[in-house]
């Protein structure tokens, strides 16, 4: 089971309190009806599914119930960091020397 740090509660809590909410930083169009089929497919179905660093949303369902974002390595399942919803995608990751 993963241990996940909620950036709102500022606590590391067991995965059972959380729900994964899919890939992060996929912007929803303000004019959904005007989206082309291609753009809608990209928004709705296409996912980066990376082997390595993933940016994803979690929800602290059985805690503060708020959505936040996390950076995790999908090979080790280790969290690099978590940050609040609305904050920009981190350009530099802690501990990423390479």
């Amino acid at each position, binding site marked *: 089971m*993963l241990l996940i740090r909620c950036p709102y509660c500022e606590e590391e809590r067991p995965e059972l309190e959380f729900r994964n909410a899919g*890939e992060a930083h996929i912007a929803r169009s303000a004019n959904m009806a005007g989206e082309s*089929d291609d753009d809608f*497919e990209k928004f709705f*179905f*296409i*996912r980066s599914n990376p*082997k390595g660093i993933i940016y*994803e949303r979690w929800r602290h369902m059985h805690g503060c119930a708020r959505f936040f974002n996390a950076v995790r390595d*999908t090979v080790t399942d280790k969290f690099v960091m978590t940050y609040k919803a609305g904050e920009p995608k981190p350009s530099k990751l802690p501990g990423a020397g390479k």
Partner: protein
Amino acid sequence: MKKYSVFAIAREAMRGHKGWEEQWSSPEPRKEYDVIIVGAGGHGLATAYYLATVHGITNVAVLEKGWLGGGNTGRNTTIIRSNYLYDESAGIYDHALKLWDGLSQELNYNVMYSARGVMMLAHNVHDVQVLKRHVHANRLNGIDNEWLTPEQAKEFCPPLNTSKDARYPVVGAALQRRGGTARHDAVAWGYARGASARGVHIIQNCEITGVKRAANGAVMGVDTTRGFIGAKKVGVVAAGHSSVIMNMAGVRMPLESYPLQALVSEPVKPVVPCVVMSNTVHAYISQSDKGELVIGAGTDQYVSYSQTGGLHILQHTLDAICEMFPIFTRMKMLRSWGGIVDVTPDRSPILAKTPVPGLYVNCGWGTGGFKATPGSGHVFAHTIAKDDPHPINAPFTIERFRTGRLIDEAAAAAVAH
């Protein structure tokens, strides 16, 4: 290829088993092939086998980063059935089921297909409605599926708890008698042996690191840990890693990869005569010929390539198993493991040409690909050989996520996703 038979066993018994030959050869890769298949699991090896036997294309390499059949082919719970709701799914899964029947003879390799029946339990009104809808839809498609009362379910599977005061009482069941199990390793080995005997190269420990494309966009071959290997046609059959390989060719996929776990108990005498599945309490169980109870769990909730998963997922499944079969509460579990499954948004596979000329993909089988192995390989070989899909896999395009013609099999694995 020396044929396996009772006479071969007798002959080898007489001379100390010195005459058995390798089941498949391990040749050095050529510089170029007509077709490269990426991934030596059941689906990839079946594709190579049918390319050779049905289409006469034998200048084929199957490249595998690990060992043959070491991915999801060797990690699944070996359940076979075709009781899917939609016509498209019924078409492809029943095509596979028809090939399972007789596959041991076709391959001259005992894949131990056992049509012991797959029984899906209903625990509430919603389950009854969903499963009866499946029964009717299946029958309209010529697929056997029948409705059982709790008493009939108990008769078919005596250890099942059908008491009315169970937490989730059994109120009925849908039974596909042609469903069952097969020996997963033997499927990979049998197809590998058959393909190798016809000249297909199976190259293990050879990981793809890139897909080379010509100026006009068409596939030229693949970079591997054993150097560049050329081919004008490349079929990607890489399960959980499909989107990684497709990304190398510049194609982004509607896939996400999740860990899926299974576990087996200590071996006991025959006690579960069929496959039992329950979507509502989320468990499925059968008994292997070695006597182990084979139990399938659900996926974890997050994308991962770790080939492991959370312990609480297994606990959840075992809770359900003990609820359905109170006699198993004191069974010891021997081992558990995880595989990485690639899941599409509509829970149906993709077997199709891609936007890249010469590149074909067979992926997205999610949590239930084993049952489709022969049918998948058969129609995917057709797709590669003819550069045109077989009528059976024609609906399973990548483009359906743009056009909206989804094949929305929410019950693809018969467990909740």
